């Protein structure tokens, strides 16, 4: 069954929402006693945004093949235009729509209902005869999900255990509103590592169609050494998956390391040594614990954990 037979399923999108309190214009620490804040934190610690938090359910009737982004766009049109989430290209290239689906960081536009909907009450509930299910519940939400496009998932919805998909903002970053997270910390960390080709810096000029300087030569096998890395779309999925990155400053993060590795492995780049020095730090490669959660949902298919492992070896073996 490919989910294209026109059978719709009822699914609830459970969204963790947040609306920030309006910013006040007066300076933050009006009281002289409040200046220090926590005795443990520095004065520059990022302020946790304050506001209203709640969970909201949206019930939809959709084809199992529908992407979760399309579900949310439908909600905007027909149920709740105030629901906030980033999106742009809708087919996995722009990298704007990374969120946590059932707790797992991934892109809204590549995730489908049939792969993520889980029966809500599979755990800790009994069926009509009073028995609890013992298979495919506790450790295997994916096992439930796989059934959705088939008959058991549909009937599951009918017999009172509705299908649910839980959505929250990308973990590891401050929430700005609903599913929108502030990923500027990631971009700042990438920028710190000079994320641009460093070579002789000469640009070509032309007169009457004739050129004075040509391209840097690079053989296909030299390109292969970094091509996959150059496909990173900076969506932040790897960062949201990383248990060390969660919380920010202690680790420069997998995305920044992938960017560094992209240039270190580019035969045209002349700054490899300086680049390796820049990541050979306590908050650089030393902070990576090789958990490899970063590899699991990379939308560009980069084996982030393995690449970082290779990078660490390269830095250590110099």
């Amino acid at each position: 069954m490919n989910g294209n037979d026109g059978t719709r399923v009822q699914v609830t999108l459970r969204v963790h929402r947040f609306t920030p309190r309006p910013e006040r214009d007066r300076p933050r620490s009006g009281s002289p006693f409040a200046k220090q804040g926590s005795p443990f934190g520095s004065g520059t610690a990022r302020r946790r945004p304050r506001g209203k938090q709640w969970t909201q359910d949206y019930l939809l009737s959709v084809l199992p093949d529908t992407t979760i982004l399309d579900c949310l766009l439908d909600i905007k049109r027909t149920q709740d235009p105030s629901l906030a989430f980033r999106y742009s290209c809708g087919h996995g290239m722009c990298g704007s729509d990374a969120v946590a689906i059932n707790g797992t960081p991934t892109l809204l536009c590549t995730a489908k209902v049939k792969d993520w909907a889980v029966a809500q009450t599979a755990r800790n509930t009994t069926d009509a005869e009073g028995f609890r299910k013992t298979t495919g519940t506790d450790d295997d939400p994916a096992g439930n999900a796989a059934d959705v496009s088939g008959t058991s998932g549909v009937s599951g919805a009918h017999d009172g255990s509705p299908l649910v998909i839980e959505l929250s903002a990308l973990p590891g970053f401050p929430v700005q509103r609903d599913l929108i997270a502030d990923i500027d910390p990631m971009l700042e960390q990438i920028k710190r590592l000079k994320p641009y080709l460093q070579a002789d810096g000469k640009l070509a000029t032309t007169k009457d169609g004739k050129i004075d300087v040509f391209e840097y030569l690079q053989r296909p096998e030299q390109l292969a050494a970094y091509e996959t890395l150059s496909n990173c779309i900076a969506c932040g999925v790897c960062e949201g998956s990383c248990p060390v990155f969660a919380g920010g400053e202690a680790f420069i993060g997998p995305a920044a390391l992938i960017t560094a590795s992209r240039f270190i492995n580019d035969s045209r780049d002349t700054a490899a040594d300086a680049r390796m020095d820049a990541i050979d730090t306590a908050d650089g490669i030393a902070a990576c614990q090789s958990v490899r959660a970063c590899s699991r949902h990379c939308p560009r298919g980069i084996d982030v954990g393995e690449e970082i492992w290779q990078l660490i070896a390269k830095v250590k073996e110099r």
Partner: protein
Amino acid sequence: MSPKHVEQMYDALIVGAGAAGLSAALGLLRSERIAQMTQEGRAPKILVVSKLQPLRSHTGSAEGGIAASLGNVSEDDWHWHYYDTVKGGDWLVDQDAAKLLAQEAPVTVINLERSGVAFSRTADGHIAQRKFGGHTAHFGQQPVPRAAYAADRIGHQILHTLWQQCIAQGVEFAEEWYVTDLVLDERHERVEGVVAYDTHTGKVHALHARNVLLATGGAGRLFHTTSNSWDLTGDGMALTLEAGLQLEDSEFVQFHPTGLAHTGILISEAARAEGGVLRNSDGEAFMQRYAPGHADLAARDVVSRSIMAEIDAGRGVADPKDPQGPRDCVWLDMTGIDPEHMHAVLPQVVETIEDYAGIDPTKDYVPVKPTAHYTMGGIPITTDGEVYTWADGARHKVTGLYAAGECSCVSVHGANRLGGNSLLDACLFGQRAGAAVAARIADSHAVASPDDNAVAAEDPSQDAVETTAQTRRTELAGLLKPTGQAGENTGSEASSQPQTLQDDNAYQLLADLGSAMERALAVRCNHDSIAEALQLVNEDFAERARALHTHSDSTAFNQEVTAIWEVRHLLELAKAMLRAADARHESRGSLKRTDYPDRDDKQYLAHSMVASTGTVAWQPVHILDMPPQAREY
């Protein structure tokens, strides 16, 4: 990122951060005179304002390549590229601009490579090139590999490289700021600045500038089925119309023949090159009938028109995802391609079909329909990116106003764009516009003292930018009064039925406008289809747009505010596009008028110049080297 503080006066504001906007920023900062000024501690104040973080720009979705007669794979000559571009555009191309495009293409591509683009390579390490529709050697003799590529991700590579170089140059960005107004002086002769809405805080900023460069991209969201991202809402074009200026050739919109059914996501031409065949509801391979000899590999506009003719004749099929819906697709039959070969040479195509249609193309037919892809027309510019109006038979420049990329029309694409020429247009003419702004900044700093910054704010009532910003603030306050529907009910209980909104919203209006424009203009049109859409746009839709309001009164990241302004921009643009299409009584390139089926060089070898009033003026095409001929492939 938002700027730490807003300057009293900017030397240059660049609106948009895709290939064109970023190329402009680099063209500006890399110019020698600006580098000199910066070294002397007189760095010009420049800000790039964009409604997306730059890496999210739609440039990143371009797949195929960027055209340049490098001759890395086989002999090539820029004269041939020049000819192909003029012919592909059905002779509605300004030949001085196309000549420049072809001549400067190689240096543009070389400098992208030297900036870091990971181009695919030939065995000896040069930039690899592939064949592309309409690009030929010896003036139409045989296909030539002219498109420099990076697997099927050239746009991603170019976008990221340009952003990286901007980081190297320390460019300041105002990200997720939406420009609501372009402000000119009263006589529409000089730019004064823009008004921008910071979506993070909901603040409206008056940004004064000596130079403004628009690089906001296309307007695919005018149509229901489009390959364009959700953000391509024609903002720059609408800003220009609303400021009292004109658009050029806005009636020309390219429809790519094979969008994946109602998603509009592109299925590359390579699918047909490898043996894919288009079939109607009877299973007939109909292209043989429309284009004997070329069949499924005829020119883009020809294939799109043939598909629509089949659908109009009742031989279309429904998108299997919406079986009860309109029969507005045809089948792409790829089952004749050996499955192993298909996976080897069309990996991205197979992945897209599997992911977004849930279909195995080795076994089942794939539903496709033409998808809105590219706006050939736009803000009229000179080859240095200067915006002008056409009046009394002459171009009148607007001092300090520039444009580049898909939102502009230097007229290198004419009535139909060749593949590989859009990235080239954006990078090359973006760079040129940036260099032109640089020269103007350097000139003005050389004569005037840098301390005359405060000119703008002396008398607030004379400050047009601030006045316009104040009007927007008042309007915003009105938009933010919700009527208490939906939105923030905090209940977590699942109701048994989907809730439905009782009142209208911008997202729904966007969808309805897309359907109406598709009925009126997609692939073919006539006076009646245009008139019907114009009536909707002028009456029903206009009324709905006026009545729109948000469903939450919180200003932080209130996406509905932007959506309301976007849909109003689209309506403004739709009106102009429909008027221009109505005024052109001929068929040329991508514009097929069923009531005027032939090209008419006597009357319409001219660019339409439409204003927001609906008046259309005609500007003669620049013919330099090649008089019009029949366009045959």
